[in-house]
């Protein structure tokens, strides 16, 4: 038996889109301030993303922590790669690194730096 029963769900979710956010709640109704912060950052940058509500599936909620070896939610994946949680994304955003990172991964953003 796998240590991560929800592994298939997680892997297919991460492959479903270039930008995937595992969060508590939904972008329209986030159920945690930290998840809400990441939604706001992505929305500000005009990044389209797929979200997975971990509160809907306890296996996914625990499985994603093991999958990434990262103990908390939210978690952002870009092109299948774990980028970070709320603190890291906020720091990257504040330093202007997040925009560069996403641009480097060819992720479309509606709002550009010098627009």
């Amino acid at each position, binding site marked *: 038996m796998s240590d991560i029963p929800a592994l298939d769900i997680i892997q297919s979710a991460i492959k479903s889109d270039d930008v995937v956010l595992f969060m*508590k*709640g939904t972008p329209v109704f986030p*159920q*945690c*301030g*930290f998840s809400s912060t990441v939604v706001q950052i992505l929305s500000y940058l005009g990044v389209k993303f797929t979200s997975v509500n971990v*509160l809907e599936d306890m296996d996914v909620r625990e499985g994603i922590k093991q999958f990434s*070896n*990262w*103990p*908390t939610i939210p978690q952002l994946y870009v092109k299948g790669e*774990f980028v*970070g*949680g*709320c*603190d*890291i994304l906020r*720091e*990257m955003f504040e330093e202007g690194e997040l925009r560069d990172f996403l641009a480097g991964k060819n992720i479309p953003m509606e709002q550009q730096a010098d627009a």
Partner: protein
Amino acid sequence: MSVAETIKAKLTSALDPTRLDITDDSARHVGHAGASGGGESHFKVVVVSEVFDGKSRIERHMLVNEALAEELRGPIHMLQIKAMTPAEEWQ
């Protein structure tokens, strides 16, 4: 030992910090999905350590997460981390 005291003991031993601030933020998250309501569930830590020198943000957070792995599986629901080197602290 309280959760905050455990965090202090484990991070001190793992990272030999020159500065370590621990804030129990649980009161701001009462009633939040996942919060126990009993407190000691949400913490903020500011860690300044030479150990972070040359390491990325993720690597730094991983070091903190690893030191507190047991607590993160148990009482801690959210750990906000600010990880700096002594040189970065005053920038």
